């Protein structure tokens, strides 16, 4: 009998030891600089409130979540580097914080993964065609910076089908990408018109485009900038751009911009003011080409504040943002102002800036910078 009890005792002891070993592992090691999640209220989904700026500087590299398959915004170049409108804002941020626009590590994110990656601290900033919505701001604990691109969901159809508005589309089949707000907006729009339709929900644009080209669906719904880019590149063999039309109606607002975690206001401010600085530079006509002239002679007080230089012998303006006062010199010098980034990335898609929502407010658009003061 004693043997049996002894054995049971040993078994229990082993179990307790194992539990203890595992439990001790939890609060083991704290000396790495803040990358371990704080023992906060919500270790899993909760935001890791921390010093993102400090992390980025210590690492010497900005970790930026981007897309890899959206023409003009975020895509892979032949040499494996990332390019695009969104990517240039990552570069601008790295230039501002680290003084080197190339000090960026790009993390390719799927639509489903992006907020998880942000909240778990795998990335410092998310710049991946992400729409600013209430639930994302509040529920997903994200902070949205100044919108870099005003987009809206639209519908592209074939000219030959004679569709002139969404309300003509009863009984049609519509191609749409899975897992985005697009899918929900589509359902809402057709419901409000009392229209019956069939969605063909693809995971990626490749087969979606093939299906649309083969006329497996009548409409293709997505952000209008994407539709315009696809229309622009539509093969002549399939009818060319003239055979397609993007309907006037915009049935959702899609303000796209950089996203950071809730709770790190300093970092959110930096992201915000890098974007605003680029817009301000555009308003003032400061480009990467003529930057040196403005640095030498700012011409007015606000330009001097923007570039972090002295004006008429005065003191250099410091906003206490936590980074060098002349950070915008690095941004404009290495990446350019808003217009340069737009012209470089979006115009090749066949979407000129003038006359769109993304024109400067001076030209009747929505791109507007709060004052640098």
């Amino acid at each position, binding site marked *: 009998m004693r043997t049996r009890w002894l054995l049971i005792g040993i078994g229990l002891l082993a179990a307790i030891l194992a539990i203890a070993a*595992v439990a001790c*592992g*939890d609060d*083991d*090691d704290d000396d*790495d600089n803040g*990358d*371990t*999640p704080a023992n906060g209220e919500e*270790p*899993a989904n909760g935001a890791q409130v921390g010093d993102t700026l400090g992390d980025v500087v210590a690492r010497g590299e900005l970790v930026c979540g981007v*897309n*890899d*398959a*959206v*023409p*003009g915004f*975020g*895509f*892979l*170049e*032949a*040499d*494996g*580097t*990332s390019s695009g409108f969104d990517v240039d804002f990552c570069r601008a941020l790295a230039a501002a914080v680290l003084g080197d626009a190339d000090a960026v*590590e*790009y*993390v*390719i*994110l*799927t639509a489903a*993964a992006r907020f*998880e990656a942000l909240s*778990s*601290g*795998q990335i410092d900033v998310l710049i991946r065609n992400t729409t600013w919505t209430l639930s994302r701001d509040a529920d997903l604990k994200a902070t949205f910076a100044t919108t870099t691109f005003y987009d809206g969901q639209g519908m592209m159809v074939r000219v030959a089908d004679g569709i002139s508005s969404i309300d003509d589309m009863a009984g049609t089949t519509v191609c749409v990408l899975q897992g985005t707000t697009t899918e929900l907006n589509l359902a809402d729009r057709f419901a409000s018109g009392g229209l019956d339709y069939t969605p063909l929900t693809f995971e*990626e*644009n*490749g*087969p979606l*485009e*093939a299906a649309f*080209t083969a006329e497996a669906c009548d409409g293709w719904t997505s952000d209008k900038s994407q539709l315009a*880019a*696809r229309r*622009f*590149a539509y*093969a002549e063999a399939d009818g060319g751009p003239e055979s397609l039309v993007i309907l006037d109606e915009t049935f959702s607002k899609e303000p796209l911009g950089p996203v950071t975690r809730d709770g790190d206001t300093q970092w959110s401010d930096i992201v915000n003011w890098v974007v605003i600085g680029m817009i301000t530079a555009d308003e003032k006509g400061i480009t990467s080409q003529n930057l040196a002239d403005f640095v030498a002679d700012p011409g007015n007080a606000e330009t001097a504040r923007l570039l972090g230089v002295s004006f008429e012998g005065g003191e250099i303006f410091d906003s206490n943002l936590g980074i060098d006062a002349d950070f915008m010199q690095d941004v404009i010098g290495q990446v350019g102002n808003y217009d340069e980034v737009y012209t470089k990335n979006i115009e*090749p*898609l066949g979407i000129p800036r003038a006359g769109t929502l993304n024109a400067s407010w001076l030209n009747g658009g929505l791109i507007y910078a709060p004052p640098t003061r």
Partner: protein
Amino acid sequence: MRGTTQIKAPAPFPRQARRWAHDNLFGGVANTLLTVVTSLFLVFALYQILRFVFVTAEWEVIEANRRLFFLGRFPVGEEWRIWPPILLVSALAGLTVGLRTRLDLRSTIMMVLWLAVGLTPVFLFFAHGTVGILTAAAVGLAALGYIGARIWLQDSRYVALIGQLVLASWLLTFPLALVLLVGFGGADTSLGIDGVDPSRWGGFHLNILLAVVAIVASFPLGVLLALGRTSSFPVFRVASTIYIELIRGVPLITILLMAWLVLPDFLPSFSVPVLAPSGLDDIELVYRVMVALTLFSAAYVAEIVRGGLQAVPRGQIEAAQALGMSTARILALIVLPQALRAVIPALVGQFISLFKDTSLVFIVGLTEMLRAGRAVAQGQIEFSGREMEVLLFVGLVFWIVAFSMSRLSQQLERNLGVGER
């Protein structure tokens, strides 16, 4: 069912051909009909394929992005890390084939032809400049190794020694490849070299890397699980069985998605040098995917090995026990060698499956070859809609590797005499 082709005497060629055709294609109405229908189908399929490959397709998308296909987002200027293992593997492959197999003239010609057919397009389209020279060097090393082995083989004094050296080198290849990738000694010290950030690994290189890691790691784990499942210890048996059936019951993509989204929440936060310097719960996605693929594959390996274990006659074990061998020695020396030898074909089949399954890691955002190609066909506006070319190319590359693997395994089976007693 089997056609009887018995050539009695060497007949003049036309008659021989006619007889062959009669025996193999046109014997009887049903057979003739089958031949005609199959031919029609074949002509149709070939016409469609050839027309696409040579007329419709625009292969520019492949050529312009060849680096992306093979290396993904690997940093420019770090390619030197890839080549030493490739060159080493080429040389070792040549040596091993030369040492281990007894290729007759026909197989040799077939192999040379196969290599020539495979390599010509490589040199025509992909291997320009330095890459071309290095690829040529790899081929040269393989040939040198093969010829060298055949010459040394004449001198039986060295065979055993060379065999052991080759085996040791094979075992060293993988650590060498990994060390070159992840760096060693820490970049701060004078001797250490920096590694390449694992999130930048990509392209076909990543497919191979994931497959090799998962194969190497899942094999011992699978054997352990198989032993557990056939063990006389109920606790081991139940635990192994539950593990195997759980894993085999769910799709790989759900396991990958778990490793990606859920696993970090369950990992402790202590740091591991090199692999996870900033805490295990912050470990690189690539490593998590390697773990997921290993755990997945181990369950399948276990089932295959279990089949082999059951095939080992009970008498063998009893005889070994009668000789007074310990359980561990019986396993290592009697049971496992026989069990594993019997299941080589199934194991290779599983490893080929695993290799193909590495194309699914796109689901967690890794830029393996298929994903890199599809990203190009969607993201680079000038190649918008060139998905078909990408698919065919990626399919071809996978096919070449997988088919070679299966052929090599058949060769291995023949040399080990599997199925012959």
